[in-house]
């Protein structure tokens, strides 16, 4: 469970666009979204799949192969992708439409907002490469996707940790009435939460482990890192609780505030810029509740990030387990 980051030579390579963030030897599940969508579609005839020339890169190809008559390729045309998804939903279907998060959030926002969110249609936006999950630089790194989407009324935002979250979330996204945005993890996705007494529930935060000194509030792949950091901190005699909040909006403030409103050091952890994501969601809930509580963010900086190898970048920007551990120890003095 330890991360290995080369701090000195040889230089790591950026490698493929979609770099894996699984640790060497870690248990993974192949294409959990694609398989979960096929399974959900067997039970719900309304489900259809669309993509904008990124089927293979969002695991939508699994669905396209299994139920080709319910798959629509829209070409590299994201405005059409989401406008058409709205049209399909208007006829009673339940579309899952996939592209990269950057294209959904930045390029097709007007279509998501007016054609899907305003009429509150059951369209499920599936965004690949959320946050810092590629070394290709700002063109592909959706470091501000949640910040962009949180201002959109009606939209549910889900930031899953692993394959367990994704498998359990997909049927719930299909069943929930309005639009959703899923921060997709694809390919060989780590399987982490099966080791905990945990079930994904849309709109709910869950305490994965208790701890007396520190409380981590985390979402997405940073919950995996939070759990690893909690293990590592135990070796320093620091007892860390981890609260996983995969639904960013609507936010389960009552669970999170209950955990935060203690004497423990409170830390948020997210694979997203420090602006407008989990940290600010938690911070605003804390302020609105009148709690004079300090919250420490572990998040990406408010900056356009470098290109490079993912482990290098996670270390550089503070998302690695080592950096989390160092930050907590520093905070505790």
């Amino acid at each position, binding site marked *: 469970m330890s991360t290995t980051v080369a701090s000195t030579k040889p230089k790591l390579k950026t490698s493929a666009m979609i770099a894996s963030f699984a640790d060497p030897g870690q248990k993974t599940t192949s294409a959990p979204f694609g398989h979960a969508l096929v399974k959900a579609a067997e039970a719900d005839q309304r489900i259809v799949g669309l993509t904008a020339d990124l089927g293979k890169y969002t695991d939508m190809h699994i669905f396209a192969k299994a139920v080709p008559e319910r798959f629509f390729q829209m*070409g590299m045309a994201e*405005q059409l992708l*989401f*406008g058409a998804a709205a*049209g399909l939903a*208007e006829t009673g279907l339940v579309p899952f439409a996939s592209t990269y998060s950057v294209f959904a959030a930045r390029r097709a926002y007007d279509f998501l907002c007016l054609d899907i969110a305003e009429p509150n249609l059951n369209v499920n936006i599936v965004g690949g490469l959320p946050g810092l999950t590629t070394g290709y630089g700002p063109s592909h790194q959706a470091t501000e996707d949640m910040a962009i989407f949180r201002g959109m009324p009606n939209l549910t935002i889900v930031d899953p940790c692993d394959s367990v979250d994704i498998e359990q979330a997909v049927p719930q996204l299909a069943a929930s009435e309005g639009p959703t945005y899923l921060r997709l993890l694809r390919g060989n996705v780590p399987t982490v939460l099966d080791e905990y007494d945990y079930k994904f529930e849309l709109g709910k935060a869950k305490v994965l482990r208790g701890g007396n000194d520190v409380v981590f509030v985390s979402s997405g792949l940073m919950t995996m890192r939070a759990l690893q950091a909690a293990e590592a901190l135990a070796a320093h005699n620091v007892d860390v609780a981890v609260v996983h909040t995969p639904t960013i909006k609507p936010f389960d403030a009552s669970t999170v505030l209950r955990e935060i409103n203690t004497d423990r050091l409170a830390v948020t952890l997210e694979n997203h810029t420090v602006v407008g994501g989990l940290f600010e969601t938690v911070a605003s809930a804390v302020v609105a509740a009148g709690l004079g509580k300090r919250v420490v963010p572990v998040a990406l900086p408010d900056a356009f990030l470098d290109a490079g190898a993912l482990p290098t970048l996670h270390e550089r920007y503070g998302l690695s387990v080592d950096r989390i551990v160092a930050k907590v120890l520093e905070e505790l003095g």
Partner: protein
Amino acid sequence: MTTTSTESTPSHQATNAVERVADRHLAVSSAAYRIRNHALNMGEVQGQGYVGQALGAADILATVYTDQLRYRAEDPHWEVRDRFLLSTGHYAIGHYAAVAEAGIIPVSELETYGSDDSRLPMSGMSTYTPGMEISGGSLGHGLTIAVGMALGLRHQGTEYEGRGARVFNFLSDGELDEGSTWEAAMGAHHHRLGNLTAMVDINALQADGATNTVLRTEPVLEKWEAFGWYAQRVDGNDVGALLEAFDNAAAVAAPEGRPSVILCDTRVGRGVPLLETREKAHFMRIEEHEWQICREQLAAGFEGTASA
């Protein structure tokens, strides 16, 4: 092409066909007149508005609602209805008039246009008004949604009396500036959406001035043809030409699985000489005393054509 024997003689058929066309023509022209009259009344209540566009597009709206659309006035969500999508939200004044003419909302409600708490906001939205399929206004959206609807209806085999539901999208020539319109044009052709018809109101006018000074969109016909559509260009204020274009689209393009576009050259303010000759403006200003003159000119013109 198969020929079948029929009991009626060819000449009898021809006479019927001519009569039918005349009947359709009269029904559409009368509806267009009433739509224009409604639009003037709504404009007067507001004191301003997109009256010029409504008058220009009235013949297209009347043709679609009177002659083409399958709908049930009492059940705007009837599953097998044809869908009419208004991309250009600011044409809502004309669309409300058409929806009232179709009996979907009461004519008496039109006077609430643009007022607080009205179901008829200045820019058309599906969440406000029965019979409005989409929320237009952000231009370049309508055709993308239309592609999804046409796909979804075909996928589900939505049929009534042997005919699938069709999708009609009304857009403006200004919307041809938007790249998303062309994404959708490609998508409709790729997916062979013969159940989709687009109508482009070419009034040659945009918010900042004449279309050819804002962003040249010509040659429009060739563009749509190059995108694989069955494209026709007609005088959008000529009811006979509109009817023929819709008939052609149904006879030629739909069976081939080709989407159709009818490019309609229209005149802003059509039917009211006072406004037709006024300097063209996106948002036309009409003085208080002019509304009655407009109505009188409209009525005189309609009676002129009806008796001709």
